[in-house]
């Protein structure tokens, strides 16, 4: 994946998490991964389609999800599986929405699909052109993992190139 695609996700994760949790965050780990995705805790998947296509998975362990939910709500919330899932989906939605906004303003056109819970233990193995970026973000509530696998949509790219040369 190219840096122009990666940077907006790093910036959005940092900004949204810091803002939602009212506390600074830091990138603890950043790597490219060719192996298949392996779920760590509560995971939400958001698919994107358009000039760039792929998926982003947000993955948070249950205790961290509860702490994040309480901080975002501004009050201590009782532990519940539904709340953990809701929190991770909404967090994913906000981070990815902000990243897509930035990419869109750079001229890439996308459609973001609603978040879905990723319940299987494993995901598809990455291919040469959908190598995944794995990011671990350290927050005051615990670690948040983001797995981004996206590629340029060649057909859309060729269609656009054809329009430009006409």
């Amino acid at each position, binding site marked *: 994946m190219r840096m122009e695609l990666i940077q907006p996700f790093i910036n959005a994760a940092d900004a*949204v998490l810091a*803002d*939602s949790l009212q506390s600074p965050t830091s990138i603890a780990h950043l790597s490219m991964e060719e192996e298949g995705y392996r779920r760590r805790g509560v995971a939400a998947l958001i698919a994107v389609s358009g000039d760039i296509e792929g998926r982003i998975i947000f993955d948070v362990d249950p205790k961290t999800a509860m702490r994040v*939910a309480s901080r*975002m*709500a*501004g009050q201590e919330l009782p532990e519940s599986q*539904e*709340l953990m899932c*809701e*929190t991770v*989906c*909404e967090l994913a*939605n*906000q*981070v*990815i*929405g*902000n990243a*897509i*906004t930035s990419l*869109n*303003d750079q001229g890439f*056109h996308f459609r*973001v*699909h*609603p978040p879905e819970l990723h319940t299987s233990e494993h995901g598809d193995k990455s291919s040469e052109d959908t190598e995944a970026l794995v990011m671990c973000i350290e927050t005051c509530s615990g670690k948040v993992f983001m797995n981004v696998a996206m590629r340029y949509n060649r057909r859309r790219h060729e269609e656009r190139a054809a329009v430009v040369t006409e």
Partner: protein
Amino acid sequence: MEQFAPVKRKDGQPVRYLVVDDSVFARKNLARMIESFGGQVAGEAGDGCTAITEYDRTNPDIVLMDITMPQMEGIEAAERIVRSHPNARIVMVSSVGYQDNIVAALQRGARHFVQKPVKPEVLYEVIKYVLGEDASVASAAGAGA
């Protein structure tokens, strides 16, 4: 959560909101903000289709509408609501805040756009702006702000 000087309708009643978002968590957070503005949640919906029926049922003063939702997205729902209720006040609340999206929402009848994560102070100002002369702000002293 911080308390704001209550925004009331001209008749002194609390402003009634319809909150539309496919995330229950997001709806609850918005409901807490509405409460801190002195408002009242008249209804909730998790998708655009339900938003339309809930609008007809509750006739709210203002709608807070997400964009990316299953079944029917927020921009289409906003357009349909405004078509049948030209005076509907709809504020789009979404994390997807690129220019094309904002322009499309405004062209189809939304009055304003607030990007997620929502800052209560930003939403409060937008609500006051969108309600305009149809609302008044009670004195801060009485609100404990």
